[in-house]
């Protein structure tokens, strides 16, 4: 079963570039990716650029409204995601707990609806 791991964090709490904490944070993602590969877990995902780059779109009365900014203005932003294919929620939660940003942010795990595009 596929699960999406959504990584939320307040950018203010992320380790600063060039510090040892930053290196450890990046290395944490490296070892999670290596573990997923070593365990043979089908996985995909990406980090996202900052919410300053986000654009939201909605259709109202047949008219496209385009707005600067993310879906909701919150302190914690969606910063990246994984989609992993594992047998059950326990397995998904074990990988989710290895996401380095869980140390200062929140990682949400959601099962994917199978056989759909959206």
């Amino acid at each position: 079963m596929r699960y999406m791991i959504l990584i939320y964090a307040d950018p203010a709490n992320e380790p600063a570039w060039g510090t040892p904490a930053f290196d450890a944070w990046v290395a944490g993602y490296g070892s999670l990716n290596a573990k997923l590969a070593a365990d043979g877990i089908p996985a995909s995902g990406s980090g996202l650029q900052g919410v300053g780059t986000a654009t939201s779109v909605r259709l109202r009365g047949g008219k496209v409204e385009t707005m600067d900014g993310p879906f909701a203005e919150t302190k914690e932003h969606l910063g990246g995601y994984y989609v992993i294919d594992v047998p059950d929620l326990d397995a998904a939660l074990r990988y989710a707990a290895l996401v380095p940003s869980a140390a200062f942010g929140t990682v949400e795990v959601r099962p994917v609806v199978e056989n759909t595009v959206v």
Partner: protein
Amino acid sequence: MRQDRGRLLAALIARLRDFQLAEEALQEALESALVHWGRAGLPASPQGWLLKVALRKAIDRIRSTARGTRKSADLALLARDEADDTEPDRIPDDRLRLIFTCCHPALDPKSRVALTLRTLGGLTTGEIARAFLDAEPTMGQRLSRAKAKIAAARIPFVVPGPEDWADRLNSVLTVIYLIFNAGYSVGPIAGRDLCTEAIFLARLLLQLAPDQPEVEGALALLLLTQARAGARTGPDGQTLPPTRQDRSLWNRAALDEGLALLDRAIARRAPGPFQLKAAIAALHSADTPPDWPQIAALYARLHDLEPTPVIALNHAVALAESGQLAQALAQVQALCPQLDGYQPFHATRADFLARSGDSTSARSEYLRAIALAGSEADRTFLQARLTGLE
């Protein structure tokens, strides 16, 4: 019958992987048992009969509704189980898996409690709703949401492995303890006593997972607390601390069983929060005055494992009773931001202030505690203490 129901439900969920379907199928099987057994007499193996009929009902439901996208291979497997001549002693006991699933941390804590009482305790939705002062439809929705999440998020129906065991067991024991506390604070409602339910569940867990010191500790804690329940209020309705209770009202058998369980647990040399809480309860039940320095030491260890403000408050009480009033008062003052509005916090602070000779501050703290008191017994107790200040 209650044991049988939980066991049958667990066996059905293990095969069907669907709480709702398992419950409906078992209900149907019980209904046909009434008709069939009345006519043909009791079958050689009632449990085996019920399991088989319930599986058949479930298969019928799956076929007729084409529920979800269940593979035909699954159905074939179920049909094979259904065709099997199951003897009652050959129904494997899947209740340990069931209790771990019901108490899974991915479920909301209140839903864990409700689902455990529903599936393992066999309480009806209405009974659970009444025990938690909820409307029945609200509780029904809570239960459906929990069952739907188990299915949709695929919460596994397994006993956790060694790497997760301690945390997950603690989650199960916490659910049982919450059930007990709910029963302890409200008393029996409509003939159902949640304290009895919690003790039933703890005994069941001990039977399914024997030799686990934390399970022994949790059952000991419930029994030691329950043993004193009959003596906890005085003749005028006020709450009495163990030292002032009439010990002839204590349930000696429950006390002895609790103490023996605690001894067994401690001998395994793997301490945990429930054993520490049981040890504290045991010291409160001793025939001699309580050993407060020992109680304070146990609370300090408990606070290392569970650093909550309520445990820090209890630690302070034990310190004060051991003669370390100044340290206790300082510790309590520091808890104000976290515990402001919590009745026992204000009652404790009032008591410490009164003992340090500050009766003006003690008075205002007692008034605050009385305003927050949840029961008449607590109000009477606090009012007496306030009057005693004069």
